[in-house]
């Protein structure tokens, strides 16, 4: 092999690139076929079906009963929990996003220098993110219970509960989410921080900038792409919150912690069993999400220019 290879004419070495176009396209499609099959069968077709379901009467048990547009959308918007769930989801999203981004950045700054101790810290911040959201919710379900919690005696004396009131339930659930995801956002922030050239900091130090000034005038502006990415990720994730509330609060107390996705699940499978209305709700959520993400990206981009 080693003898024959160099003896080939140089034109042969470029044969790979000069493969006939048609053959290349055919091979490309061949390798992309599994992806295409999955994307079409499990993504494109369901997406079209959900549009059709949203304009059809579609009970869970009997299936398609024909077009009834726009009844499902009217029913969805007039659902007694619709407004409450939208307001609650937005409230939760703002709270979770602000806390997660601030903590993610804070933790990243805390362990930014590379040392053994900091590697240990990074790992301990990241371990919760290896757990599933359902496992984490179950863990805190026990931790927050008035009977099994290690904090139970303290809480009993103070007369407070973790999940007893709407505000407490919101804060407790947000704490769980911060615990589970802070490490993830820390890693993203660390990547962003590493992208800031060191000489910018040195120049600032030479000019006598204080730590706070350096942070405000250098770190934050240069971190904007990372902040944009993390904001979009965090807002999207929080708007679609389900497991944490389904497991931890079951929407209670007094239906005060129902998120939009939980409402979709309730309408589809718990009691009402109306897939048509659930499909209409899901489409509303999808459109809202696309719109919100587009607005966020535009906001971050216009700030840049």
């Amino acid at each position, binding site marked *: 092999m080693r003898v024959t290879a160099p003896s080939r004419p140089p034109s042969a070495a470029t044969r790979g690139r000069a493969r006939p176009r048609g053959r290349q396209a055919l091979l490309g499609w061949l390798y992309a076929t599994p992806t295409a099959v999955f994307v079409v069968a499990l993504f494109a077709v369901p997406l079209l079906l959900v549009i059709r*379901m949203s304009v059809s009467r579609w009970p869970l048990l009997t299936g398609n009963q024909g077009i009834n547009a726009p009844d499902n959308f009217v029913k969805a918007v007039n659902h007694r929990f619709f407004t409450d769930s939208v307001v609650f989801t937005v409230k939760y999203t703002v709270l979770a996003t602000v806390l997660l981004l601030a903590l993610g950045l804070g933790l990243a700054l805390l362990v930014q220098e590379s040392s053994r101790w900091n590697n240990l810290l990074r790992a301990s911040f990241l371990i919760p993110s290896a757990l599933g959201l359902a*496992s984490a919710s179950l863990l805190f379900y026990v931790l927050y219970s008035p009977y099994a919690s290690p904090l139970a005696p303290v809480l009993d004396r103070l007369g407070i509960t973790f999940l007893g009131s709407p505000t407490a339930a919101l804060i407790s659930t947000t704490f769980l989410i911060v615990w589970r995801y802070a*490490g993830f956002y820390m890693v993203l922030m660390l990547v962003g921080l590493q992208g800031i050239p060191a000489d910018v900091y040195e120049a600032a130090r030479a000019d006598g900038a204080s730590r706070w000034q350096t942070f405000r005038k250098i770190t934050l502006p240069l971190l904007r792409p990372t902040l944009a990415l993390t904001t979009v990720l965090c807002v999207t994730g929080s708007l679609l919150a389900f497991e944490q509330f389904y497991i931890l609060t079951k929407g209670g107390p007094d239906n005060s912690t129902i998120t939009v996705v939980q409402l979709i699940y309730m309408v589809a499978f718990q009691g009402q069993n109306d897939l048509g209305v659930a499909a209409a709700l899901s489409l509303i959520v999808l459109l809202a999400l696309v719109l919100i993400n587009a607005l966020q990206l535009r906001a971050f981009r216009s700030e840049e220019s």
Partner: protein
Amino acid sequence: MVAVSRSHIADGGAPPSVEGPTRRNRPRGVTIGGIALRTPYWVFSGSVGLIFLAPLLWTAVASVGPRAGTNQVDGWGFGNYETLANYQAGIWRYLANTAFVALLAVALTLLISLLGGYAFARFRFPGKNILFLVTLAILMVPYATLLIPLYVLLNQVGLQNSLVGVALVLTMFQLPFSTFLMRISFEAVPRELDEAAMVDGCSTFSALWRVLLPAVKPGLITVGLFAFLTAWNDFMAPLILINDTERMTLPLAVSNLRGQVQGVVDYGATEAGVVVLALPCIVLFLLLQRHYVRGFMSGAMKG
């Protein structure tokens, strides 16, 4: 003594300019003053680290500890795990179901993203960009929006209440991340490598199998790890697609376990369930930490 010897090393050591340009704050030498200055930092950062570890440690300890109202009333032991083992179809059943879903999803994700990443990185074909964009668009669509029609569709093709159906759905949700990561993994490999193989008479497939596969192995490990963690832990897909207790996955079973015993929640068994759920994930995380972090980072590069 320590202070003296350290400062001596610092004097004789590398000049400051050689210190990596990426290091922003030069680490302070281990002088007595340095230790005094650093102690508040160690105490503070250490307690923050403990906040993250404490819930896990407490759950692990409490799951074998005594508590009224559980199968482990006094003394230490595995009573709670016995409750878990005998719950409905039994924990082995649920573990087997979960492992089946997770391994099938991992195998499918690896296969599809290996071939797909190769196609997107090395070939030109009509519709390539559209297919790639549509694959990434899966990220934009809420889970619930797709699970409702998927519930109907899987019913129509006879995959209702089926673990295979769940694995297929989870594979699809994993495709944006894995296809993207495999594409950039292939693109990072120099083209000369597979072109040389093809000059030597390899087909595109054997070039992929013999030459490129070893080169993209780290990418595959990351993809497989994330597919496993997602599939092992997923709650919503089995919640909607499975309604037979025999076929439930572990997260669903542990979640249902609460409140089954005469309306009283068995917290001990729930703790045991959390430990069983979390253990494989934490072990994998500790073994493959580097790959895990790289997965997050590739997402950040994209932004």
